[in-house]
């Protein structure tokens, strides 16, 4: 198994790529200190002469904008929503990890680092993950100081809970709305800087192109979604905090507007896209109910702390779950993984659900669901306690399904939730385009092939509050860079590209709506690049996506005009980019002839059906460069000096 086995038609291999920013140290724990010390500083008076553009106002964007504004830089921030407070970080439910060891249960920075590398199935970079674990501690302090109302105990101290994939309680939470509370904290810090004049905010603006001048990222082209006006904004550096690309699957737990356009446009201008096939399929979502379905709703993974997951032992058992006796139920996670039980990592829980459904033991419409049962928890803790802990989630479930989860078990099924892949960045979070930095879900850096629960909020805030503000100075210290003129050919070209694309969408006047293309792409991705991938399926997917892309550019129907609020036009641009991304995801999945984390290749499994990695061949980051004649693969070797590479076991 080598990647040259008949895959030459899909890509070529280029020179390896390496992170040159992480300093050489005696022990990994000294690395971040050393980098902060070695990074060039910008004195406060000079910061006023430097400008930074930040795209996106989720945890990673709002925190960076607020912090860089506080530091004295001129910040310009963009979001497509009507307020920065609405970015999709707001929907994260469960919690945020931090190695505080407030529970005195053996936690430490090293253990959080270890758990994250292991949870990522040994496909993340040790240096970045260690720094994430170190920074986690400061995040909680910062958020509490902002007035984030974390859950507390009667003594007034912060409460913690445990989460999938770990054996300590290190997750801080605010009922089932942790993302909302953290984002409101970051949003308020951002609004404070807007009021102070340090940040200029543009809501309802979508970034459609990055401006690269003399090899450096120097600005963006954006469209005002209210008026349709196209404008160019120039700066000394650009930060993309534009989130993940799970909506390539059409149905996902992402917000409807989440898209890949900002990062994809940057990719086409030279930024490497790393590990695009690493997708997280979250095990606890409300199953699909019909064709009209527009999105999937996540039920926090914290439910697995007290809920028990099961299916009937018999095939196609359509009895009322309450009438199925104990001995005819299969609590399959507890059976297969006795050490972790219902708390195995997300990728394992999701695939196990798929397997029992493939065995025709699934429940609900189409047999695509498993039970998540709180009957035992209600008996053990009482209904009031369950309600206090999970009430809002139960209410949401009841509203969506019309069923009462206090009385009948919930039905859950896996859904696309998070994308570990993203733009390649070095230790400074700088992409392969100098001056273009990438934070949060938009980059690839910390979660390897699978993200642990409660780690996305941690990474978004680590990047935005603490990492970027201590690395971007190293780049900006060489500035202010030569002023770029609006009439610079590179600026005019970027703007022209945007205008031509919009004119093209509006001129096709075909017969198929944007949504119909998006839905079809989503089906192809889910069937062939979802929970299980095979060479045969991926080849099929690539050829279908290519046909679909051609059809899209010939037959898409975009209503309305360019110079107005036009949601059909907005979606057309996003779907056009998803079509290109989808193809790269399938090529990445095809080339990675191993199973790791969320990427399960049917051809690479153990006798028990568990994911089988091939560390000798695939212990690298696949960083893809956009090429006119197909993608070019640059490998970054992953070296593990601290965590021993092991086949993951949660048994």
């Amino acid at each position, binding site marked *: 198994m080598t990647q040259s086995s008949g895959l030459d038609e899909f890509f070529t291999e280029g020179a390896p790529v390496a992170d040159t920013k992480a300093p050489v140290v005696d022990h990994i724990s000294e690395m971040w200190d050393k980098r902060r010390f070695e990074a060039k500083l910008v004195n406060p008076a000079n910061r006023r002469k430097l400008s930074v553009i930040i795209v996106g106002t989720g945890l990673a964007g709002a*925190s960076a904008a607020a*912090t860089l504004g*506080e530091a004295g830089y001129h910040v310009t921030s963009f979001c497509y929503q*009507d307020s*920065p*407070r*609405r*970015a*999709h970080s*707001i*929907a994260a439910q469960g919690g945020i990890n931090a190695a*505080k060891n407030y529970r005195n249960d053996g936690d430490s920075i090293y253990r959080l680092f270890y758990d994250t590398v292991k949870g990522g199935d040994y496909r993340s970079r040790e240096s970045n993950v260690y720094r994430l674990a170190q920074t986690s501690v*400061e995040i909680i*302090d*910062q958020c*509490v*100081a*902002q*007035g984030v*109302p*974390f859950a*507390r105990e009667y003594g*007034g*101290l*912060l409460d913690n809970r445990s989460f999938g994939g770990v054996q300590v309680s290190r997750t801080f939470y*605010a*009922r089932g709305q942790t993302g*909302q*509370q953290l984002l*409101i904290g970051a949003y*308020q*810090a951002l*609004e*404070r800087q*807007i*009021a102070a004049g340090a940040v200029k*905010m543009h*809501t309802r603006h979508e970034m459609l192109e990055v401006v690269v001048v003399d090899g450096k990222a120097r600005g963006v082209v954006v469209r005002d979604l209210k008026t349709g006006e196209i404008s160019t904004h120039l700066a000394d550096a650009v930060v993309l905090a534009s989130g993940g690309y799970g909506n390539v699957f059409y149905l996902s737990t992402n*917000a*409807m507007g989440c898209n890949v356009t900002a990062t994809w446009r940057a990719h086409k201008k030279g930024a490497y896209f790393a590990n695009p096939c690493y997708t997280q399929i979250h095990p606890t979502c409300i199953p699909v109910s*019909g064709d*009209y379905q*527009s*999105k999937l*709703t996540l039920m926090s993974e914290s439910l697995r702390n007290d809920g028990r997951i099961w299916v009937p032992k018999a095939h196609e058992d359509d009895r009322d779950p309450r009438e199925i006796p104990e001995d005819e139920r299969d609590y399959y996670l507890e059976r297969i993984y006795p050490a972790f039980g219902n708390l195995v990592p997300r990728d394992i829980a999701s695939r196990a659900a798929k397997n029992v459904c493939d065995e025709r033991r699934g429940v609900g419409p189409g047999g695509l669901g498993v039970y998540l049962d709180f009957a035992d928890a209600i008996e053990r803790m009482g209904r009031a306690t369950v309600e206090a802990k999970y009430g809002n989630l139960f209410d*949401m479930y009841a*509203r*969506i399904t*019309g069923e009462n989860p206090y009385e009948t078990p919930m039905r859950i099924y896996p859904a696309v939730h998070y994308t570990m892949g993203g733009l390649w960045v070095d230790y400074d979070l700088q992409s392969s385009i100098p001056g273009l930095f990438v934070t949060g879900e938009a980059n690839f850096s910390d979660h390897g092939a699978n993200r642990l629960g409660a780690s996305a909020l941690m990474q978004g805030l680590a990047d935005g*509050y*603490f990492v970027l*503000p201590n690395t971007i100075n190293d780049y900006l210290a060489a500035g202010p860079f030569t002023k770029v003129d609006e009439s610079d050919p590179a600026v005019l070209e970027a703007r022209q590209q945007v205008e031509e694309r919009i004119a093209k969408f509006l001129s096709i006047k075909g*017969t198929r709506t944007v949504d*119909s293309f998006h839905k079809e792409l989503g089906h192809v991705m889910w069937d062939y690049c979802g929970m299980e991938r095979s060479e045969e399926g991926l080849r099929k997917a690539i050829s279908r996506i290519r046909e679909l892309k051609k059809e899209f550019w010939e037959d898409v*129907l975009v*209503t*309305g005009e360019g110079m107005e*609020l036009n*949601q*059909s036009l907005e979606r057309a641009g996003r779907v056009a980019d998803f079509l290109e991304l989808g193809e790269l995801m399938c090529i990445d999945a095809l080339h990675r002839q191993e199973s790791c984390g969320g990427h399960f290749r049917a051809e690479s499994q153990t006798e028990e059906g568990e994911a089988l990695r091939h560390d000798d061949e695939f212990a690298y980051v696949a960083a893809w460069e956009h090429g006119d004649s197909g993608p070019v693969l640059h490998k970054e070797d992953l070296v593990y000096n601290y965590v021993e590479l092991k086949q993951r076991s949660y048994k």
Partner: protein
Amino acid sequence: MKINLRVWRQKNPEIDGKMVDYQLDDVSEDMSFLEMLDVLNESLSVSGEEPVAFDHDCREGICGSCGVVINGIAHGPEVTTTCQLHMRSFADGDTIDVEPWRSGSFPVVKDLVVDRSSFDRIIQAGGYVSAPTGTAPDAHATPVPKKDADHAFDAATCIGCGACVAACPNGSAMLFTAAKITHLGLLPQGQPERDSRVIGMVDQHDAEGFGGCTQIGECTAACPKGIPLHTISRLNKDLLGALARGEG
């Protein structure tokens, strides 16, 4: 089921809008209200008409993007966000009026989309704790009684959707403002700026043209997050105290 819709259509702020009738013949009761509008929009697009513009994003009831007046009630007949309202709340053959939030301080952008940037400006006027990144003490340095933390959380669940304004006969945004005053005012971290916060935010509220509060309570009845009316009493108390201390 069959649904008759009457939807507010307005091409842009300069042009007068009007209610337009549409009929949908095959609506499933498991659809969300917004999915029903998606179905309408797909059919409008295919027949070459412009789809209805409406704000929406997370469709989980938490981002606060969506919100329309349904049969005269902000977010419709259930106490929830528009995205979490399902068609099982309606009957076959129903006629449903769909309008944007109605408030002078939320001007219509297009169809059902309104401009709520006034809410951001109210937050800018003091709805924060000044805690620059990196200055925080250890999270356990200041214990917070659970009761206070829980009540602060209850107020902090406001999603900024604007239903309170749409529901209020005075067009007041006092519930939105009071939710933030209460959230931060109950926590030790919010104390140093408590007086300046309430004065600043209320001034901005008034400057945006929102109406005054006369304690009618329509806001809290329409609030998808159940922000209680007594947050407004708390705001009034804080405001009077701050004014008496001469913090204005």
